[in-house]
């Protein structure tokens, strides 16, 4: 075999060429091939090379004579091809030449003289071993010496089985020989077979051999042509590794599966000590160890202490950055070497590239220096190229899975939350229920989810609501808010329920949907109805009571007036017949009747106070208080002081008049001081007006206390002038309006009554802007 430049000058020859020409390689290299071709065929030889160059392909078989160093002419047969650089440009020729004359059939050779046979055997490219019928080696050529490490001298006379046949095949070998000699049948003969052999040091290696039996003078001998196919096997193994990986990767879609398969296959098939697959995280620009075979492998498909390497750092980082494979023959010379679990001296690192982008790195380290060959690099590159698409898909899948997982998680969380809600929660897509929580099942009294999925609430309700439902659905789909709605449904168990429903647009399973919360308000509604009915009944009873009081007081008043009138008529008609005592008694009757009339009037007023018919109005308290004072006929020894500016309030005028009139008249009535003073004040507090009416009169005796507000109670029993109804009315008015009334005896003398009135901010503001 040889290589030569495009000009035809030898650049490399192997030792067969050396032997063929009878020269050392340095005597050949640099010289033109025509120097060794017989003159008669030099032109044809040139043409042969030219043809190869112009055809750009392997030549046909071509025979020509060459001149050997000994001056002999030897015919050789040759095939020639171009070898090209990476860019595909021809760089030179390489060819394989074999001596033609000496490679005729063995039969022919045997007919030649023994010497001639010897030279043929010696110059054969394969190891040639000849054994006799007894299995004794009778011939052992030079190549056999090289291949098996036995010198010819040592080999001859030995049994074949003791030399190159591995222990396990020896018995079979002996048996086969015997069988053949007995029967003439030998299944392994006359064909090329692959088997292993051992060399002198006992190392087993693969060989390819052909055994041809010959019979000369009635005696058999066997010629074996053996070729060491270790290298061939290695290439085949690499190819097989790639093939196996390709097969193993079929159907693997997850990133981890793909990565682990790469690491595992690389180790097993390429005979590496370790292999780590890194994947680049685009976001962080870190290379993460995803799969590792070798010392870093812990349990099944799990990495011990996985490390991450920033892009550009270390051999791995550098390879990821430049996007080209690297072999480091001696890591101790590489300052960038990153020690992972152990220092290893050589390293092979190839990038995994998909669509011009590095997506990961396959890295292998070995404790021996110079372990990795160009072939390893090429194989691993092939592997990297082969897996890139699958790996890239796996990365995308993983990202997708991650996103889906997150989505699932959030949905799971949502479901957990919603499943435990006491309220019915449902998701509706395009008007159909796609999810309902357990509380919802209970509400609709469905046995299973299937009963309700795919339906809508309208299916449980009356069709009359359909237009409204459709309108709500449209608004919700437009992302608008809708108010809650109450309606009656008939459950799956045919029970009537009233539900209140609130709906809002949501995203469910990545789709636009509507979330609806439904509450059972049947009981609430019943309660409301009951309350309303009771209130109505109460109102009727109240009205009747008022009517009753009205009639009763009228009916009571009539006879009273009669008593009064009759008494006066007695005085009028019989005045002259009555003595002073008699007339006085009759007048007492009249006085008491009058008092009774006042009492009845008081009851009547009290009973009608609750029926607040008149509307509230704006009342200027200054004016109202002044009117009350004017109506009251204040005795001269009492002075009433009113705060300079009382507020304007929103209240019922008649009622407020009653309040002030009653309180002021009480203060006057119970005034026992020689110079009486009644003070009316007001101040705002906590959003209300606080009024106070203070006097320096009798005050409220302790035994009466809070009872002062009770019907017919009097502040002071001694006072015969009052009915005791006034304060009850005041309290009723104040409290019916959601306000408060209370009193406090003054420290010196008298009592102060306090009450609140509502303070209307907006009204007051408008008032200010009106006045200003």
């Amino acid at each position: 075999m040889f290589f030569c430049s495009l000009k035809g000058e030898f650049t490399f020859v192997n030792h067969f060429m050396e032997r063929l020409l009878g020269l050392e390689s340095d005597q050949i290299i640099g010289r033109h091939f025509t120097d060794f071709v017989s003159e008669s065929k030099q032109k044809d030889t040139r043409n042969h090379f030219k043809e190869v160059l112009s055809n750009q392909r392997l030549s046909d078989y071509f025979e020509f004579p060459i001149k050997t160093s000994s001056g002999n002419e030897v015919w050789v047969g040759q095939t020639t091809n171009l070898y090209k650089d990476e860019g595909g440009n021809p760089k030179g020729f390489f060819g394989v030449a074999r001596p033609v004359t000496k490679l005729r059939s063995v039969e022919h050779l045997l007919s030649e003289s023994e010497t001639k046979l010897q030279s043929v055997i010696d110059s054969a490219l394969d190891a040639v071993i000849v054994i006799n019928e007894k299995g004794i080696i009778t011939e052992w050529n030079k190549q056999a010496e090289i291949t098996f490490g036995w010198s010819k001298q040592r080999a001859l006379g030995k049994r074949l089985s003791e030399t190159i046949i591995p222990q396990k095949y020896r018995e079979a070998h002996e048996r086969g020989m015997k069988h053949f000699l007995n029967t003439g049948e030998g299944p392994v003969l006359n064909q090329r077979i692959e088997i292993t052999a051992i060399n002198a040091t006992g190392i087993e290696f693969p060989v390819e051999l052909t055994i041809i039996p010959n019979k000369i003078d009635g005696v058999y001998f066997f010629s074996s042509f053996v070729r060491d196919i270790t290298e061939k096997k290695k290439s085949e193994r690499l190819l097989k590794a790639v093939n196996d990986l390709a097969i193993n990767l079929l159907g693997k879609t997850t990133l981890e599966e793909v990565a682990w398969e790469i690491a595992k296959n690389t180790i097993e098939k390429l005979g590496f000590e370790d292999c780590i697959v890194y994947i680049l995280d685009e976001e962080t620009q870190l290379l993460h160890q995803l799969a590792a075979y070798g010392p870093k492998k812990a349990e099944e498909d799990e990495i011990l202490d996985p490390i991450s390497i920033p892009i550009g750092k270390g051999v791995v980082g550098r390879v990821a950055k430049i996007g080209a494979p690297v072999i480091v023959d001696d890591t101790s010379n590489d300052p960038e070497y990153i020690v992972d679990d152990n220092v290893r001296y050589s390293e092979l690192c190839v990038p995994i590239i998909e669509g011009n982008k590095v997506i990961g790195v396959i890295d292998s380290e070995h404790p021996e220096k110079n372990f990795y060959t160009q072939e390893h690099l090429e194989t691993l590159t092939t592997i990297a190229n082969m897996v890139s698409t699958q790996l890239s898909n796996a990365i995308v899948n993983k990202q997708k899975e991650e996103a889906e997982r997150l989505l699932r998680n959030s949905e799971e969380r949502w479901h957990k939350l919603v499943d435990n809600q006491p309220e019915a929660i449902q998701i509706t897509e395009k008007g159909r229920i796609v999810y309902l929580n357990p509380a919802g099942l209970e509400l609709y009294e469905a046995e299973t989810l299937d009963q309700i999925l795919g339906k809508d609430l309208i299916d449980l309700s009356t069709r009359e609501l359909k237009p409204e439902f459709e309108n709500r659905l449209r608004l919700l789909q437009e992302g608008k808010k809708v108010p809650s709605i109450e309606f009656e449904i008939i459950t799956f168990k045919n029970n009537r329920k009233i539900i209140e429903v609130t709906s809002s647009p949501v995203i469910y399973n990545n789709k636009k949907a509507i979330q609806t919360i439904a509450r059972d308000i049947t009981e609430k509604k019943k309660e409301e109805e009951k309350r309303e009915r009771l209130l109505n009944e109460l109102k009727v009873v109240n009205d009747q009571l008022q009517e009753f009081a009205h009639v009763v007081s009228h009916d009571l008043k009539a006879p009273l007036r009669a008593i009064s009138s009759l008494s006066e008529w007695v005085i009028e008609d019989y005045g002259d017949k009555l003595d002073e005592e008699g007339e006085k008694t009759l007048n007492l009757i009249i006085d008491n009747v009058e008092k009774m009339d006042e009492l009845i009037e008081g009851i009547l007023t009290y009973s009608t106070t609750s029926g607040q018919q008149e509307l509230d109005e704006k009342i200027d308290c200054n004016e109202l208080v002044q009117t009350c004072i004017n109506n009251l006929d204040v005795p001269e020894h009492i002075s009433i002081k009113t705060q300079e500016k009382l507020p304007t309030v929103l209240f019922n005028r008649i009622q407020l008049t009653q309040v002030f009139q009653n309180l002021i008249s009480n203060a006057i009535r119970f005034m026992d001081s020689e110079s009486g003073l009644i003070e009316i004040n007001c101040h705002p507090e906590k959003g209300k007006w606080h009024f106070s009416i203070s006097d320096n009169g009798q005050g409220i005796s302790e035994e009466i206390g809070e009872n002062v507000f009770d019907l017919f109670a009097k502040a002071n029993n001694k006072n015969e002038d009052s009915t005791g109804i006034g304060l009850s009315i005041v309290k009723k008015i104040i409290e019916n309006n959601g306000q408060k009334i209370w009193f406090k005896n003054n420290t010196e003398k008298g009592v102060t009554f306090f009450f609140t009135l509502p303070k209307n901010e907006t009204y007051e503001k408008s008032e200010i802007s009106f006045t200003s």
Partner: protein
Amino acid sequence: MKNQRSVLLLEDSALEIKKVERAFQKLGFENTLVSKINGKEGLAWLMENQDNLPGLILLDLNMPIMDGFEFLEKVKEDKVLKMIPVVIMTTSKHPSDKLKGFERQAAGYMVKPVRYSDFLEMLSTMKHYWDISELAT
């Protein structure tokens, strides 16, 4: 010229009727006092005496069969009868009764005082105003 027209009193209580009669006597009223015990009888009497209608009607509110308000409504529905002034004389101080009365075009609303002497005073004042208004027409 003296006001000689009669006065119709609608009152179900005999004692109240007597009170008004007595007051008329006491105050020296010369007008004829006709009393009827409910609205229905009052209306019937008015129908019978179209040619000699009273100049004033004193009306109690609380009466059986046809009460004062109903009577007032009927009177005010009639073209002729509505010209007669009606003064309500009642024991009710209730504002809603007063309002109802004036809504039905009562000429006056008087709450009967408890004391007979006060009643006399009130009736005398009313008679005085009636006399003046009668003379003016």
